[in-house]
Protein backbone atom coordinates (compact mmCIF):
# COMPACT_ATOMS: atom_id res chain seq x y z
CA UNK A 1 0.00 0.00 0.00
CA UNK A 2 1.73 3.14 -1.08
CA UNK A 3 1.19 6.29 0.84
CA UNK A 4 -0.35 9.47 -0.50
CA UNK A 5 -2.80 7.85 -2.90
CA UNK A 6 -5.36 6.68 -0.39
CA UNK A 7 -7.87 9.15 1.01
CA UNK A 8 -6.97 10.66 4.38
CA UNK A 9 -8.87 8.87 7.13
CA UNK A 10 -7.66 11.36 9.69
CA UNK A 11 -6.92 15.01 9.22
CA UNK A 12 -6.21 17.89 11.56
CA UNK A 13 -6.16 21.55 10.58
CA UNK A 14 -4.31 24.15 12.56
CA UNK A 15 -4.80 22.26 15.79
CA UNK A 16 -3.85 24.29 18.84
CA UNK A 17 -3.52 23.28 22.50
CA UNK A 18 -1.71 25.02 25.28
CA UNK A 19 -1.46 24.46 29.01
CA UNK A 20 -1.05 27.92 30.40
CA UNK A 21 2.21 29.06 28.81
CA UNK A 22 3.24 25.70 27.41
CA UNK A 23 2.17 25.16 23.83
CA UNK A 24 1.69 21.39 23.52
CA UNK A 25 0.20 21.35 20.02
CA UNK A 26 1.22 24.31 17.92
CA UNK A 27 -1.08 24.78 14.91
CA UNK A 28 -0.63 21.21 13.74
CA UNK A 29 -2.01 20.28 10.36
CA UNK A 30 -1.65 16.60 9.83
CA UNK A 31 -3.05 14.07 7.40
CA UNK A 32 -3.07 10.31 7.61
CA UNK A 33 -4.07 8.21 4.58
CA UNK A 34 -6.21 5.18 5.15
CA UNK A 35 -4.33 1.94 5.66
CA UNK A 36 -1.00 3.49 6.53
CA UNK A 37 1.23 2.65 9.46
CA UNK A 38 2.54 5.98 10.66
CA UNK A 39 4.91 6.74 13.46
CA UNK A 40 4.92 10.02 15.31
CA UNK A 41 8.27 10.59 16.94
CA UNK A 42 9.92 13.35 18.85
CA UNK A 43 11.72 13.99 22.10
CA UNK A 44 9.97 13.81 25.45
CA UNK A 45 7.56 16.68 25.85
CA UNK A 46 7.26 17.19 22.09
CA UNK A 47 3.49 16.97 22.41
CA UNK A 48 2.80 13.48 21.05
CA UNK A 49 0.59 12.34 23.91
CA UNK A 50 -1.23 15.67 23.92
CA UNK A 51 -1.89 15.23 20.20
CA UNK A 52 -3.34 11.77 20.86
CA UNK A 53 -5.49 13.19 23.63
CA UNK A 54 -6.86 15.76 21.21
CA UNK A 55 -7.59 13.12 18.59
CA UNK A 56 -9.46 10.94 21.05
CA UNK A 57 -11.30 13.76 22.78
CA UNK A 58 -9.67 13.41 26.19
CA UNK A 59 -8.57 17.02 25.70
CA UNK A 60 -10.31 19.75 23.71
CA UNK A 61 -8.25 22.01 21.45
CA UNK A 62 -8.21 25.77 21.86
CA UNK A 63 -8.25 26.12 18.10
CA UNK A 64 -8.35 24.15 14.86
CA UNK A 65 -10.36 21.19 13.67
CA UNK A 66 -10.14 17.42 13.54
CA UNK A 67 -11.69 15.34 10.78
CA UNK A 68 -12.16 11.60 10.78
CA UNK A 69 -13.39 9.98 7.59
CA UNK A 70 -14.36 13.42 6.43
CA UNK A 71 -16.44 14.13 9.52
CA UNK A 72 -15.68 17.01 11.85
CA UNK A 73 -15.14 15.37 15.23
CA UNK A 74 -13.50 18.33 16.98
CA UNK A 75 -16.21 18.62 19.62
CA UNK A 76 -17.33 15.03 19.80
CA UNK A 77 -17.11 13.30 23.19
CA UNK A 78 -14.50 10.52 23.43
CA UNK A 79 -16.92 7.61 23.42
CA UNK A 80 -18.56 8.71 20.17
CA UNK A 81 -15.19 8.88 18.48
CA UNK A 82 -14.57 5.30 19.52
CA UNK A 83 -17.88 4.31 18.00
CA UNK A 84 -16.80 5.97 14.77
CA UNK A 85 -13.70 3.80 14.81
CA UNK A 86 -10.85 5.41 16.71
CA UNK A 87 -9.27 3.23 19.37
CA UNK A 88 -6.24 3.96 21.50
CA UNK A 89 -3.81 2.70 24.07
CA UNK A 90 -2.27 4.87 26.74
CA UNK A 91 1.38 5.63 27.35
CA UNK A 92 0.92 5.32 31.07
CA UNK A 93 -0.90 2.07 31.79
CA UNK A 94 -4.58 2.81 32.16
CA UNK A 95 -6.50 -0.36 32.98
CA UNK A 96 -9.22 -1.48 35.35
CA UNK A 97 -6.84 -2.55 38.10
CA UNK A 98 -9.26 -4.54 40.25
CA UNK A 99 -10.92 -6.35 37.41
CA UNK A 100 -9.36 -9.55 36.15
CA UNK A 101 -7.40 -9.67 32.92
CA UNK A 102 -10.33 -11.45 31.36
CA UNK A 103 -12.85 -8.88 32.54
CA UNK A 104 -10.65 -6.11 31.20
CA UNK A 105 -10.65 -7.70 27.77
CA UNK A 106 -14.35 -8.48 28.08
CA UNK A 107 -15.23 -4.83 28.53
CA UNK A 108 -13.37 -3.96 25.37
CA UNK A 109 -14.88 -6.87 23.43
CA UNK A 110 -18.34 -5.94 24.62
CA UNK A 111 -17.72 -2.41 23.43
CA UNK A 112 -16.60 -3.60 20.01
CA UNK A 113 -19.63 -5.83 19.62
CA UNK A 114 -21.92 -3.03 20.66
CA UNK A 115 -20.23 -0.42 18.62
CA UNK A 116 -22.74 -0.08 15.88
CA UNK A 117 -25.65 -1.12 18.00
CA UNK A 118 -27.78 0.60 20.50
CA UNK A 119 -26.66 1.36 24.02
CA UNK A 120 -28.33 -1.36 26.06
CA UNK A 121 -28.84 -3.80 23.27
CA UNK A 122 -28.14 -7.25 24.53
CA UNK A 123 -24.98 -8.63 23.17
CA UNK A 124 -24.89 -12.38 23.45
CA UNK A 125 -22.86 -13.35 26.44
CA UNK A 126 -21.52 -16.40 24.64
CA UNK A 127 -20.34 -14.21 21.83
CA UNK A 128 -18.52 -11.95 24.27
CA UNK A 129 -16.77 -14.77 26.05
CA UNK A 130 -15.98 -16.57 22.79
CA UNK A 131 -14.28 -13.49 21.41
CA UNK A 132 -12.56 -12.84 24.73
CA UNK A 133 -11.19 -16.35 24.95
CA UNK A 134 -10.07 -16.15 21.35
CA UNK A 135 -8.09 -13.01 22.10
CA UNK A 136 -6.67 -14.33 25.36
CA UNK A 137 -5.55 -17.57 23.74
CA UNK A 138 -3.39 -15.64 21.28
CA UNK A 139 -1.07 -14.55 24.03
CA UNK A 140 0.99 -17.19 25.71
CA UNK A 141 2.14 -14.88 28.46
CA UNK A 142 -1.36 -14.67 29.88
CA UNK A 143 -1.19 -17.64 32.18
CA UNK A 144 -3.99 -16.73 34.55
CA UNK A 145 -6.80 -14.71 32.99
CA UNK A 146 -8.54 -14.57 36.38
CA UNK A 147 -5.71 -12.60 37.93
CA UNK A 148 -6.41 -8.96 38.76
CA UNK A 149 -4.92 -6.68 36.14
CA UNK A 150 -3.36 -4.52 38.83
CA UNK A 151 -1.38 -7.51 40.05
CA UNK A 152 0.38 -8.06 36.72
CA UNK A 153 3.98 -6.95 36.35
CA UNK A 154 4.38 -3.67 34.49
CA UNK A 155 5.41 -5.03 31.07
CA UNK A 156 2.39 -7.32 31.13
CA UNK A 157 0.09 -4.45 32.04
CA UNK A 158 1.57 -2.51 29.17
CA UNK A 159 0.87 -5.35 26.76
CA UNK A 160 -2.66 -5.70 28.10
CA UNK A 161 -3.07 -2.00 27.48
CA UNK A 162 -2.29 -2.57 23.81
CA UNK A 163 -4.53 -5.63 23.68
CA UNK A 164 -7.48 -3.57 24.94
CA UNK A 165 -6.99 -1.03 22.17
CA UNK A 166 -6.82 -3.78 19.56
CA UNK A 167 -9.79 -5.67 20.97
CA UNK A 168 -11.97 -2.74 19.97
CA UNK A 169 -11.09 -3.55 16.35
CA UNK A 170 -10.99 0.12 15.44
CA UNK A 171 -10.36 1.35 11.93
CA UNK A 172 -7.77 3.75 13.27
CA UNK A 173 -5.54 2.58 16.11
CA UNK A 174 -3.54 5.06 18.14
CA UNK A 175 -0.78 3.43 20.14
CA UNK A 176 1.09 5.61 22.61
CA UNK A 177 4.56 4.15 23.15
CA UNK A 178 3.53 0.49 22.98
CA UNK A 179 7.09 -0.71 23.64
CA UNK A 180 7.91 1.56 26.56
CA UNK A 181 8.83 -0.56 29.54
CA UNK A 182 8.54 -3.93 27.81
CA UNK A 183 11.54 -6.13 27.04
CA UNK A 184 13.19 -7.15 23.78
CA UNK A 185 11.07 -10.29 23.21
CA UNK A 186 7.89 -8.39 23.71
CA UNK A 187 8.89 -5.81 21.17
CA UNK A 188 8.92 -8.67 18.68
CA UNK A 189 5.50 -9.71 19.90
CA UNK A 190 4.12 -6.23 19.58
CA UNK A 191 5.65 -5.91 16.14
CA UNK A 192 3.81 -9.07 15.12
CA UNK A 193 0.58 -7.80 16.62
CA UNK A 194 0.85 -4.60 14.68
CA UNK A 195 1.85 -6.30 11.45
CA UNK A 196 -1.13 -8.63 11.59
CA UNK A 197 -3.36 -5.74 12.41
CA UNK A 198 -2.12 -3.35 9.78
CA UNK A 199 -3.48 -5.47 6.98
CA UNK A 200 -6.86 -3.79 7.22
CA UNK A 201 -6.33 -0.85 9.50
CA UNK A 202 -4.70 2.51 9.84
CA UNK A 203 -2.18 2.82 12.63
CA UNK A 204 -0.65 5.84 14.24
CA UNK A 205 1.91 5.16 16.93
CA UNK A 206 4.50 6.96 18.95
CA UNK A 207 7.61 5.32 20.26
CA UNK A 208 11.07 6.00 21.51
CA UNK A 209 12.53 2.78 20.16
CA UNK A 210 13.88 4.03 16.86
CA UNK A 211 14.76 0.56 15.58
CA UNK A 212 11.21 -0.59 16.14
CA UNK A 213 9.81 2.54 14.53
CA UNK A 214 12.07 2.26 11.48
CA UNK A 215 11.01 -1.33 11.00
CA UNK A 216 7.29 -0.96 11.41
CA UNK A 217 6.35 2.47 10.05
CA UNK A 218 5.68 3.21 6.42
CA UNK A 219 6.07 6.89 7.07
CA UNK A 220 7.34 8.92 9.98
CA UNK A 221 6.29 12.31 11.26
CA UNK A 222 8.69 14.15 13.55
CA UNK A 223 7.37 16.49 16.16
CA UNK A 224 9.25 18.94 18.34
CA UNK A 225 7.90 21.52 20.74
CA UNK A 226 4.37 20.99 19.51
CA UNK A 227 5.28 21.46 15.84
CA UNK A 228 5.69 19.01 12.99
CA UNK A 229 9.26 19.53 11.81
CA UNK A 230 9.61 16.75 9.28
CA UNK A 231 7.74 13.99 7.54
CA UNK A 232 8.68 11.24 5.12
CA UNK A 233 9.64 7.62 4.70
CA UNK A 234 11.93 6.25 7.40
CA UNK A 235 15.03 6.75 5.28
CA UNK A 236 13.99 10.25 4.26
CA UNK A 237 13.44 11.25 7.85
CA UNK A 238 16.69 9.72 8.98
CA UNK A 239 18.58 11.79 6.47
CA UNK A 240 16.63 14.98 6.98
CA UNK A 241 18.99 17.66 8.23
CA UNK A 242 16.20 19.26 10.24
CA UNK A 243 16.02 16.13 12.34
CA UNK A 244 19.46 16.74 13.71
CA UNK A 245 21.99 14.16 14.66
CA UNK A 246 21.98 14.71 18.38
CA UNK A 247 18.24 14.20 18.43
CA UNK A 248 18.65 10.76 16.89
CA UNK A 249 21.46 10.10 19.31
CA UNK A 250 19.03 10.89 22.11
CA UNK A 251 16.56 8.39 20.80
CA UNK A 252 19.10 5.63 20.69
CA UNK A 253 19.99 6.41 24.27
CA UNK A 254 16.35 6.20 25.17
CA UNK A 255 16.14 2.84 23.56
CA UNK A 256 18.98 1.47 25.64
CA UNK A 257 17.47 2.73 28.87
CA UNK A 258 14.11 1.18 28.08
CA UNK A 259 15.44 -2.19 27.13
CA UNK A 260 17.77 -2.53 30.08
Amino acid sequence: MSAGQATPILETRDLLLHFGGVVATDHVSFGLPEGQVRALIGPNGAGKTSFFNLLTGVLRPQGGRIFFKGRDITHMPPYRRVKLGIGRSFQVVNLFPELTVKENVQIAVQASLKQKNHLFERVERQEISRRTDEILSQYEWIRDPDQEAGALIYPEQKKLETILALALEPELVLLDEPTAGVDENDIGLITDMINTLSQNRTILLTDHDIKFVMKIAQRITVMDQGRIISEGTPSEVASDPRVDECYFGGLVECQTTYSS
Partner: protein
Amino acid sequence: MSLSPRFRLLLGAAILVLVLLPLLGQPYLIYLLTMSLIFGIFAMAYDLLYGFTGLVSFGHSVFYGLPAYAMGMVAVTVFKYPNPLVMIAAAMLTGLVLGCLIGFVCTFARGIYMALVTFAFAQIIELLVLHDPWGITQGENGIMGLRAAPLSLGGLTVDLFSGVGLYYLVLGLIIASYLVIRALVNSPLGDVFKGIKQNEERLLSLGYNPRPYKVAAFGLSGMFAGLAGAMAVFLNNSIVPSMVDWAVGAEILLITIMGGAGTLIGPIAAAFLIIFAESYAASYLGGGNWVYVMGGLYIAVVMFLPGGIFRTRYLKKAFV
Protein backbone atom coordinates in the same frame (compact mmCIF):
# COMPACT_ATOMS: atom_id res chain seq x y z
CA MET B 1 -17.00 -15.97 39.06
CA SER B 2 -18.34 -18.72 41.23
CA LEU B 3 -18.57 -19.21 44.95
CA SER B 4 -15.95 -21.22 46.73
CA PRO B 5 -17.32 -24.55 48.04
CA ARG B 6 -16.55 -23.65 51.63
CA PHE B 7 -18.46 -20.44 51.26
CA ARG B 8 -21.45 -22.19 49.71
CA LEU B 9 -21.54 -24.45 52.73
CA LEU B 10 -21.41 -21.49 55.08
CA LEU B 11 -24.15 -19.69 53.22
CA GLY B 12 -26.31 -22.82 53.19
CA ALA B 13 -25.86 -23.25 56.92
CA ALA B 14 -26.75 -19.61 57.54
CA ILE B 15 -29.93 -19.97 55.50
CA LEU B 16 -30.82 -23.15 57.35
CA VAL B 17 -30.41 -21.41 60.69
CA LEU B 18 -32.55 -18.52 59.47
CA VAL B 19 -35.24 -20.95 58.33
CA LEU B 20 -35.25 -22.72 61.69
CA LEU B 21 -35.06 -19.72 64.02
CA PRO B 22 -38.82 -18.99 64.06
CA LEU B 23 -39.29 -22.39 65.76
CA LEU B 24 -37.98 -20.72 68.93
CA GLY B 25 -41.26 -18.84 68.87
CA GLN B 26 -40.00 -15.47 70.00
CA PRO B 27 -41.92 -12.69 68.26
CA TYR B 28 -39.37 -10.01 69.07
CA LEU B 29 -36.55 -12.12 67.66
CA ILE B 30 -38.59 -12.61 64.50
CA TYR B 31 -39.15 -8.88 64.32
CA LEU B 32 -35.43 -8.15 64.59
CA LEU B 33 -34.56 -10.83 62.08
CA THR B 34 -37.08 -9.47 59.62
CA MET B 35 -35.77 -5.94 60.11
CA SER B 36 -32.20 -7.19 59.58
CA LEU B 37 -33.20 -8.93 56.36
CA ILE B 38 -34.97 -5.79 55.16
CA PHE B 39 -31.90 -3.71 55.86
CA GLY B 40 -29.89 -6.45 54.21
CA ILE B 41 -31.85 -5.95 50.99
CA PHE B 42 -31.47 -2.19 51.35
CA ALA B 43 -27.73 -2.54 51.95
CA MET B 44 -27.30 -4.74 48.88
CA ALA B 45 -29.13 -2.09 46.87
CA TYR B 46 -26.68 0.47 48.18
CA ASP B 47 -23.76 -1.83 47.55
CA LEU B 48 -24.80 -2.20 43.91
CA LEU B 49 -24.51 1.56 43.52
CA TYR B 50 -21.57 2.31 45.75
CA GLY B 51 -19.59 -0.90 46.09
CA PHE B 52 -19.78 -1.92 42.46
CA THR B 53 -20.40 1.24 40.47
CA GLY B 54 -18.49 3.55 42.80
CA LEU B 55 -21.26 6.14 43.06
CA VAL B 56 -21.86 7.66 46.48
CA SER B 57 -25.37 8.66 47.43
CA PHE B 58 -26.05 10.69 50.54
CA GLY B 59 -29.75 10.56 49.93
CA HIS B 60 -30.65 6.90 49.75
CA SER B 61 -33.37 7.37 52.35
CA VAL B 62 -35.68 8.60 49.59
CA PHE B 63 -35.46 5.30 47.73
CA TYR B 64 -36.50 3.51 50.90
CA GLY B 65 -39.10 5.98 52.15
CA LEU B 66 -40.86 7.33 49.09
CA PRO B 67 -41.76 3.89 47.72
CA ALA B 68 -43.37 3.28 51.11
CA TYR B 69 -45.43 6.39 50.62
CA ALA B 70 -46.32 5.20 47.14
CA MET B 71 -47.74 2.09 48.80
CA GLY B 72 -49.65 4.31 51.18
CA MET B 73 -51.10 6.18 48.22
CA VAL B 74 -52.12 2.95 46.55
CA ALA B 75 -53.62 1.42 49.64
CA VAL B 76 -54.88 4.27 51.79
CA THR B 77 -54.69 7.89 50.78
CA VAL B 78 -55.39 8.02 47.05
CA PHE B 79 -56.45 4.84 45.27
CA LYS B 80 -57.60 2.84 48.28
CA TYR B 81 -56.72 -0.40 46.56
CA PRO B 82 -54.97 -2.54 49.18
CA ASN B 83 -53.83 -5.35 46.92
CA PRO B 84 -50.46 -6.56 48.25
CA LEU B 85 -48.94 -7.39 44.87
CA VAL B 86 -49.96 -4.04 43.45
CA MET B 87 -48.58 -2.33 46.54
CA ILE B 88 -45.20 -4.05 46.26
CA ALA B 89 -45.06 -3.44 42.53
CA ALA B 90 -45.89 0.22 43.09
CA ALA B 91 -43.08 0.52 45.62
CA MET B 92 -40.49 -1.11 43.36
CA LEU B 93 -41.61 0.92 40.38
CA THR B 94 -41.42 4.12 42.41
CA GLY B 95 -37.90 3.21 43.50
CA LEU B 96 -36.90 2.46 39.92
CA VAL B 97 -38.37 5.63 38.44
CA LEU B 98 -37.13 7.83 41.25
CA GLY B 99 -33.69 6.28 40.98
CA CYS B 100 -33.57 6.98 37.26
CA LEU B 101 -34.80 10.55 37.73
CA ILE B 102 -32.43 11.47 40.55
CA GLY B 103 -29.68 9.51 38.82
CA PHE B 104 -30.28 11.46 35.64
CA VAL B 105 -30.06 14.82 37.36
CA CYS B 106 -27.25 14.11 39.80
CA THR B 107 -24.93 12.57 37.19
CA PHE B 108 -24.60 15.98 35.59
CA ALA B 109 -22.17 16.50 38.46
CA ARG B 110 -19.41 14.13 39.48
CA GLY B 111 -17.77 12.74 42.59
CA ILE B 112 -18.60 14.46 45.83
CA TYR B 113 -20.71 17.03 43.98
CA MET B 114 -22.89 14.29 42.63
CA ALA B 115 -23.30 12.92 46.14
CA LEU B 116 -24.34 16.37 47.33
CA VAL B 117 -27.03 16.60 44.68
CA THR B 118 -28.51 13.37 46.03
CA PHE B 119 -28.33 14.88 49.49
CA ALA B 120 -30.12 18.06 48.42
CA PHE B 121 -32.84 15.94 46.80
CA ALA B 122 -33.22 13.90 49.95
CA GLN B 123 -33.58 17.03 52.06
CA ILE B 124 -36.16 18.54 49.73
CA ILE B 125 -38.17 15.33 49.61
CA GLU B 126 -38.03 14.87 53.38
CA LEU B 127 -39.26 18.41 53.92
CA LEU B 128 -42.02 17.93 51.35
CA VAL B 129 -43.16 14.74 53.06
CA LEU B 130 -43.27 16.50 56.40
CA HIS B 131 -44.97 19.58 55.02
CA ASP B 132 -47.41 17.58 52.91
CA PRO B 133 -48.53 20.35 50.57
CA TRP B 134 -50.69 18.02 48.46
CA GLY B 135 -52.29 16.08 51.28
CA ILE B 136 -50.92 12.67 50.49
CA THR B 137 -48.32 11.94 53.16
CA GLN B 138 -50.28 13.05 56.24
CA GLY B 139 -47.32 15.08 57.50
CA GLU B 140 -45.65 14.22 60.76
CA ASN B 141 -48.29 11.64 61.66
CA GLY B 142 -47.56 9.42 58.72
CA ILE B 143 -49.96 6.81 57.39
CA MET B 144 -51.20 4.28 59.90
CA GLY B 145 -53.51 1.33 59.90
CA LEU B 146 -52.68 -0.22 56.57
CA ARG B 147 -54.74 -3.15 55.50
CA ALA B 148 -53.89 -5.56 52.76
CA ALA B 149 -55.30 -8.88 51.77
CA PRO B 150 -53.01 -11.87 52.31
CA LEU B 151 -50.55 -12.38 49.52
CA SER B 152 -51.07 -15.60 47.61
CA LEU B 153 -48.12 -16.96 45.74
CA GLY B 154 -48.87 -20.08 43.75
CA GLY B 155 -50.82 -21.94 46.41
CA LEU B 156 -48.97 -20.38 49.33
CA THR B 157 -50.80 -17.71 51.23
CA VAL B 158 -48.85 -15.21 53.32
CA ASP B 159 -50.49 -12.96 55.85
CA LEU B 160 -48.28 -9.92 55.44
CA PHE B 161 -49.03 -8.62 58.89
CA SER B 162 -48.21 -11.81 60.73
CA GLY B 163 -44.66 -11.94 62.02
CA VAL B 164 -43.62 -15.37 60.81
CA GLY B 165 -45.34 -15.21 57.43
CA LEU B 166 -43.68 -11.92 56.58
CA TYR B 167 -40.37 -13.19 57.88
CA TYR B 168 -40.31 -16.10 55.47
CA LEU B 169 -41.43 -13.86 52.62
CA VAL B 170 -38.58 -11.43 53.31
CA LEU B 171 -36.14 -14.31 53.68
CA GLY B 172 -37.21 -15.55 50.26
CA LEU B 173 -36.93 -12.06 48.83
CA ILE B 174 -33.45 -11.42 50.15
CA ILE B 175 -32.21 -14.69 48.64
CA ALA B 176 -33.86 -13.83 45.34
CA SER B 177 -32.46 -10.29 45.45
CA TYR B 178 -29.00 -11.60 46.22
CA LEU B 179 -29.11 -13.99 43.28
CA VAL B 180 -30.40 -11.31 40.93
CA ILE B 181 -27.90 -8.65 42.01
CA ARG B 182 -25.06 -11.14 41.95
CA ALA B 183 -25.98 -12.22 38.44
CA LEU B 184 -26.21 -8.58 37.49
CA VAL B 185 -22.79 -7.58 38.76
CA ASN B 186 -21.24 -10.59 37.06
CA SER B 187 -22.95 -9.86 33.76
CA PRO B 188 -21.52 -7.76 30.92
CA LEU B 189 -23.57 -4.87 32.27
CA GLY B 190 -21.99 -5.42 35.69
CA ASP B 191 -18.55 -5.27 34.10
CA VAL B 192 -19.37 -1.80 32.85
CA PHE B 193 -20.61 -0.80 36.32
CA LYS B 194 -17.31 -1.97 37.83
CA GLY B 195 -15.45 -0.21 35.05
CA ILE B 196 -17.12 3.07 36.02
CA LYS B 197 -15.92 2.63 39.58
CA GLN B 198 -12.36 1.80 38.69
CA ASN B 199 -11.53 3.93 35.71
CA GLU B 200 -14.20 6.02 34.12
CA GLU B 201 -11.74 7.73 31.79
CA ARG B 202 -10.66 4.44 30.30
CA LEU B 203 -14.26 3.41 29.82
CA LEU B 204 -14.79 6.55 27.73
CA SER B 205 -11.80 5.60 25.62
CA LEU B 206 -13.33 2.20 25.03
CA GLY B 207 -16.42 3.77 23.57
CA TYR B 208 -18.79 3.77 26.52
CA ASN B 209 -20.85 6.74 27.55
CA PRO B 210 -20.89 6.15 31.30
CA ARG B 211 -23.89 8.30 32.06
CA PRO B 212 -26.74 6.02 31.01
CA TYR B 213 -25.05 3.24 32.95
CA LYS B 214 -24.86 5.41 36.03
CA VAL B 215 -28.53 6.24 35.68
CA ALA B 216 -29.27 2.54 35.32
CA ALA B 217 -27.27 1.78 38.47
CA PHE B 218 -29.28 4.39 40.36
CA GLY B 219 -32.52 3.00 39.01
CA LEU B 220 -31.74 -0.60 39.89
CA SER B 221 -30.48 0.39 43.32
CA GLY B 222 -33.63 2.43 43.85
CA MET B 223 -35.78 -0.51 42.87
CA PHE B 224 -34.29 -2.87 45.44
CA ALA B 225 -34.30 -0.13 48.08
CA GLY B 226 -37.99 0.31 47.28
CA LEU B 227 -38.56 -3.39 47.84
CA ALA B 228 -36.93 -3.06 51.26
CA GLY B 229 -39.08 -0.05 52.06
CA ALA B 230 -42.21 -1.98 51.07
CA MET B 231 -41.37 -4.83 53.42
CA ALA B 232 -40.69 -2.37 56.24
CA VAL B 233 -44.19 -1.01 55.76
CA PHE B 234 -45.70 -4.46 56.27
CA LEU B 235 -43.46 -5.10 59.25
CA ASN B 236 -44.27 -1.89 61.08
CA ASN B 237 -47.77 -1.49 59.71
CA SER B 238 -47.11 2.20 59.28
CA ILE B 239 -45.48 4.69 56.95
CA VAL B 240 -43.74 7.39 58.92
CA PRO B 241 -41.64 10.41 57.88
CA SER B 242 -38.59 8.97 59.63
CA MET B 243 -38.39 6.53 56.71
CA VAL B 244 -37.31 9.42 54.47
CA ASP B 245 -35.06 10.94 57.15
CA TRP B 246 -31.60 11.27 55.60
CA ALA B 247 -30.21 9.52 58.68
CA VAL B 248 -31.64 6.28 57.24
CA GLY B 249 -29.59 6.87 54.11
CA ALA B 250 -26.54 7.61 56.23
CA GLU B 251 -27.07 4.42 58.21
CA ILE B 252 -27.24 2.28 55.09
CA LEU B 253 -24.03 3.87 53.84
CA LEU B 254 -22.37 3.05 57.17
CA ILE B 255 -23.68 -0.51 57.08
CA THR B 256 -22.43 -1.04 53.55
CA ILE B 257 -18.96 0.26 54.31
CA MET B 258 -18.79 -1.62 57.60
CA GLY B 259 -19.78 -4.84 55.92
CA GLY B 260 -17.35 -4.37 53.08
CA ALA B 261 -18.48 -2.52 49.99
CA GLY B 262 -18.58 -4.66 46.89
CA THR B 263 -19.17 -7.95 48.68
CA LEU B 264 -23.01 -8.05 48.92
CA ILE B 265 -22.87 -10.62 51.72
CA GLY B 266 -20.78 -8.34 53.92
CA PRO B 267 -23.38 -5.56 54.00
CA ILE B 268 -26.07 -8.11 54.82
CA ALA B 269 -23.99 -9.35 57.75
CA ALA B 270 -23.42 -5.78 58.87
CA ALA B 271 -27.16 -5.12 58.71
CA PHE B 272 -27.72 -7.99 61.16
CA LEU B 273 -24.94 -6.70 63.39
CA ILE B 274 -26.25 -3.14 63.49
CA ILE B 275 -29.94 -4.02 63.97
CA PHE B 276 -29.21 -6.49 66.77
CA ALA B 277 -26.57 -4.35 68.45
CA GLU B 278 -28.88 -1.36 68.36
CA SER B 279 -31.79 -3.25 69.79
CA TYR B 280 -29.87 -5.03 72.57
CA ALA B 281 -27.84 -1.98 73.49
CA ALA B 282 -31.07 0.00 73.68
CA SER B 283 -32.73 -2.49 75.97
CA TYR B 284 -29.75 -2.91 78.31
CA LEU B 285 -28.56 0.67 78.44
CA GLY B 286 -31.28 3.13 79.33
CA GLY B 287 -31.62 6.75 78.38
CA GLY B 288 -30.14 6.69 74.92
CA ASN B 289 -26.81 5.33 76.11
CA TRP B 290 -26.93 2.62 73.48
CA VAL B 291 -25.52 5.31 71.23
CA TYR B 292 -22.15 4.76 72.88
CA VAL B 293 -22.19 1.15 71.76
CA MET B 294 -23.19 2.04 68.23
CA GLY B 295 -20.71 4.87 67.94
CA GLY B 296 -18.00 2.65 69.38
CA LEU B 297 -18.92 -0.11 66.95
CA TYR B 298 -18.60 2.20 63.96
CA ILE B 299 -15.21 3.38 65.15
CA ALA B 300 -13.95 -0.07 66.08
CA VAL B 301 -14.94 -1.77 62.82
CA VAL B 302 -13.22 0.89 60.73
CA MET B 303 -10.15 0.94 62.95
CA PHE B 304 -9.63 -2.77 63.24
CA LEU B 305 -11.25 -4.26 60.15
CA PRO B 306 -10.02 -2.22 57.21
CA GLY B 307 -12.21 -2.72 54.18
CA GLY B 308 -15.15 -3.81 56.31
CA ILE B 309 -16.18 -6.94 58.13
CA PHE B 310 -15.73 -8.97 55.00
CA ARG B 311 -12.40 -7.47 54.10
CA THR B 312 -12.86 -6.65 50.50
CA ARG B 313 -9.35 -7.17 49.29
CA TYR B 314 -8.84 -10.68 50.56
CA LEU B 315 -12.21 -12.30 50.48
CA LYS B 316 -14.01 -10.51 47.68
CA LYS B 317 -13.39 -13.28 45.19
CA ALA B 318 -14.82 -15.92 47.42
CA PHE B 319 -17.81 -13.93 48.48
CA VAL B 320 -19.23 -12.34 45.40
